[in-house]
Every structure is written in structure tokens, then in C-alpha cells.
């Protein structure tokens, strides 16, 4: 038996457990799901479930909110955590306590935190108390577009820590000589960041982006904890749409929505991987 064949067999054995899981819990369900989305009751309707989804008000609303959230929260999270990482790296020696403190928000379970957010953001919460004491009108965090801001804030606050750790590790890996020689050539601090530091941590940036995306799907847990099943129209996300249709047992529509959402994510990921391949960022 050649070495190549032995290696292939070994690889197959190592992959069997995960592949079995993926087959049973992802591939087969998706096939069933896709087939269902083409039917209403027992009659084949082609893509009309998809077309009717796009004329459905709640679906387009959910789609719009999800897109707004994704394109604002993910870049914001990446920028904020990069800035904090730069700040932490500017200390010569730093107690590891400070870096670990940033991980605390991830560690604390969602459910434990609801009360804290309520105390802050309720109509008569601490923030409104502060705002009105300045003579400004109070903000209805739970019933206006500020809800979206609140959710974005919670998302950034919660996931910042892990991204900061990824970034600080990336920054610490840049050889000191690069920065030193740039400084000798007369580069200012801003230029060192944009020309030396950012290009040198592109693999980290890509990994953080991937993480930020995975996390952005999980924001539903906070939305559910704060708003229940029917949040106001500013934070009604696709996940809410899927869940609510689940309770109505509207399978064809649900399947169609699942497929659309998946296609959207796969498209984003595909672009991402193409870029990675071109530059070999993750290697």
C-alpha cells in the first residue's frame, strides 16, 4: 500500500464522525427543506413560495433590519476591538487581569444579564434618569429606532473582548524591527498603524471577521431575552421571522425563508473564501 493511499484512508477515518453529523443534521435536512419549499400542501408550486415571501411585509422588514444590523455592527465591532487592542498594546507591561476582564461579558450568560440591561435602558431606567436630569427628552429604548442602537451596543460590548484578544495577539506577532525601521524612515504613529500594522495582521482581521459574523447571528438571544417573541419593528430580525413562522407551523414559507437566508450567507462566505485563496490569508 502506497503512502498516499494510507494517508487518504487515515484522513477518511478522521473525518467520519464529523461527516456523519453533517450529513444527518445539515445535508439531508436541507434537501428536505428545499423540497418542502416548492410545495404548498400537496401541490407543486415551483418558486411561488419565494416570490410571495418578497411581497410579504414582515419578511422584507426583517430582511432590511438584518442587513442594517450586519453592515453596521460587524464593522463597528472590528474597529472598536482593534482600537482597544492598539491601546492595550501601547502599554509596555500590562497585567493579564486587564485583558481577561474584557472576556467577562462573553462568559456571563445572556439570561443573567437581562436585569442589568433593563435597569439601564427601561423608560425609567438609569440612562433616562441621567438624560432627563440634563433637561433632554427621554429616550424610549424599547420602542423606537434606539432599540437597534441598544442591540448594536450590546453586541459590540459583549463580543469585543474575544476580538481584542485576537487582535492583541496578532499585533504582538509583528516583528519589532518592522515598526522600528518605519519609525527611522520618519513614519508617524498613524502611518505605522495603517501601513505596517494593519497589512501585517490581515490573517487576524479575516479570522475576526468570521467570528464577528458567527456572533452576529447569535444576537437573537439578546433580542429574545429583551423583547420576547414580537419585538418592535426596528429590531425585528430574520431570526424572529423564522421563529414566529415556526410557531404558526407554516412550513413551506419557513423553508423558503431558511433557504434564502442560507443562500445569502453562503454568497458572503464564498466571496470571503475567494479573497482568502487569492492572498492565502489564513495559511
Amino acid at each position, binding site marked *: 500500500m502506497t503512502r498516499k493511499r494510507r*494517508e*487518504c484512508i*487515515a*484522513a477518511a*477515518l*478522521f*473525518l467520519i*464522525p*464529523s461527516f456523519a*453529523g*453533517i450529513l*444527518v*443534521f*445539515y445535508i439531508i*435536512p436541507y434537501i*428536505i427543506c428545499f423540497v*418542502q419549499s416548492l410545495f404548498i400542501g400537496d401541490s407543486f408550486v415551483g418558486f411561488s413560495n419565494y416570490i410571495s415571501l418578497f411581497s410579504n411585509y414582515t419578511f422584507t422588514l426583517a430582511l432590511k433590519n438584518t442587513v442594517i444590523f450586519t453592515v453596521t455592527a460587524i464593522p463597528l465591532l472590528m474597529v472598536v476591538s482593534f482600537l482597544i487592542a492598539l*491601546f492595550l498594546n501601547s502599554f509596555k507591561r500590562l497585567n493579564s487581569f486587564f485583558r481577561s476582564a*474584557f472576556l*467577562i*461579558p*462573553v*462568559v*456571563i*450568560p*445572556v*439570561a*443573567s444579564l*437581562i*436585569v*442589568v440591561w*433593563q435597569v439601564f435602558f*427601561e423608560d*425609567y*431606567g*438609569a440612562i*433616562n434618569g441621567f438624560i432627563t436630569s440634563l433637561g433632554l427628552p427621554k429616550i424610549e429604548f424599547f420602542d423606537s429606532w434606539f432599540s437597534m442602537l441598544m442591540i448594536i451596543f450590546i453586541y459590540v*460590548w459583549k463580543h469585543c*473582548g*474575544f476580538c481584542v*484578544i485576537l487582535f492583541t*495577539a496578532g499585533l*504582538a*506577532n509583528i516583528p519589532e524591527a518592522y515598526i522600528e525601521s518605519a519609525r527611522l524612515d520618519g513614519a508617524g504613529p498613524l502611518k505605522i498603524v495603517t501601513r505596517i500594522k494593519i497589512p501585517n495582521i490581515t490573517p487576524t482581521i479575516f479570522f475576526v471577521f*468570521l467570528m464577528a459574523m*458567527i456572533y452576529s*447571528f*447569535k444576537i*437573537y*438571544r439578546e433580542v429574545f*431575552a429583551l423583547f420576547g417573541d414580537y419585538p418592535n419593528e426596528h429590531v425585528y430580525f430574520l*431570526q424572529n421571522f423564522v421563529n414566529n413562522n*415556526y410557531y404558526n407551523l407554516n412550513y413551506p414559507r419557513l*423553508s423558503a425563508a431558511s433557504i434564502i*437566508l*442560507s443562500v445569502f*450567507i*453562503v454568497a458572503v*462566505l*464564498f466571496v470571503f473564501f475567494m479573497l482568502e485563496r487569492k492572498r492565502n490569508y489564513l495559511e
Partner: protein
Amino acid sequence: MKKVKTVFKYIFLIILTLLFLFPLIYMLIGSLMPNEEIVSMLDFSKETYKSIKLIPDAFTLDQFYQVFFRRAQYLLKFWNSVIITFPTVIGQVVVSSLAAFAFAKLRFPFRDKLFFVYIVLLILPLQVTLVPNYIVLDNLKLLNSFLSVILPGTFSAFGICLLRQCIKYIPDASIEAARIDGASYFRIFTGIILPQIRGGLITLTLLCFIDSWNAVEQPLIYFSDRSMYPLSIGLADIGNSDYGIIFACGVMFMIPPLLIYLYGERDIESPFTTSDKL
């Protein structure tokens, strides 16, 4: 001038840290306040603004006494969380590390294409996969059992991605040397790979633990028996009059993840710092 700058930097650092630590401190203090004090602090029906109270008027352990000895339903929910989380974490670490090794170090046809398929499928959010999974679980007669949450939770893109990244830093030469000495691939995996990716394994354990500890959607949909609900759902169900209990349960609920975190704190950063491994 330089000194002033340093002082400002430290002040900013402390403010930043407090912002991130605040909820933890707040939960701890709240859990030690007597119930009436919390209720008066949190009563949203009164038309007065809340102030955040960090120094309790009185100190009591009554909430914890209630949760641990008088109201068993919360402890029961806590154990439901444990039953769901532990097998999920163990399963995920085992499955992910096996697959990660194959993707990082073994050569086989279509490796990168298969990896892409893995990542794409596994990254799909829960809300999309819940429905397809429901159909399959229904056919497997697994609904309304803990397995319906545990089994799908075992497979994650994050685990495979993270561990693959860690394994890549292990030099090929050490694997090659062991292979020439006649070690099987499984021996290489357990003897050379696993000891070197400790940091990655602990990070995965922690993050996977937190994720499944917080599971809300799957139990809500797959369990029809409400007594099987984990504490993550139970906490949202506690009535408004029982704020004290919420704080005590919240503290109880965050102890296990915190313990794992404190245990692995040092190692969590190591998978991302490559300098010492190259």
C-alpha cells in the same frame, strides 16, 4: 508630560475595564441584597427613575438559601443545563479535533473544497437549521429528549476552524519523524498533536460551553415537556416579583463558565500567539 500621559492612559484603562466588569459586580451585589431592596430598586411601575445602587443597605444570603434549599425547581433547571452542556462540549471537542487534524496535516483529494463545504454548512445560523433539523429529529424519534439538543450541537464550524489553525503551527517535521519511526496516524494525533494544542482545546471548551449553556432556541422548540427546560430559559420565566431570585439564579448560572474561564485563562491566548511555536 510623559508621566501625565501615562496617568491618563491608566485612568482610561481602568474606566474601560470597569465598563466591561460592571454587570458581574452588579449581579454579585444584587444577589446579596434583601429582596425588598431589590424590588424597590427595580420596580418599573413607579414613575421614578432608577438609580444604580452599588452599596446595599443590608446584607443577606436569603436568596441563595431560597434557591438551594427551598425552591428545588431552579436547581432542577440548573441540572438540566448540565445534562445538555457536558456531552455537547465533550462531543464537540473530540469531533472537531479529529476533523481539524485531517484538514490541517493530511493530504487527500478535494481537501480544500471539502473544508469549504464544512465551514459553509456549519456556519449557518441556528435559526436556519432549526427547522430542517426538526424534521430529521422528528423522523429519528429524538424530539423531547435531551439528545435532540446535544447531537446537533456537537458539530461546529468554529471548533474545526480554530483547531485547524492551531494544528497548522505544529511543524511538519515532527509529524514526519514520528511517521518514519512507525507511529500510526492515530498515535501521531494523540501523542504529538493533542499535547501541543492545549490552548486551542481549552478555548474551544470554554466557548462551546458558554454557547450551549446559553441555549434558548433549541430546547424551546424541541422539548414539549417544560420540566426539561434548562436554566437559560427558566431565568427568563421568573416572575417580576422575584427579582432577588433572579439575581441569585443569575449568579449560580454564571459560576460554571466563570470557573472554566479562570482555570484556562492563561491558555486562552496561546492559540493565537504564534511566536513561541514557530
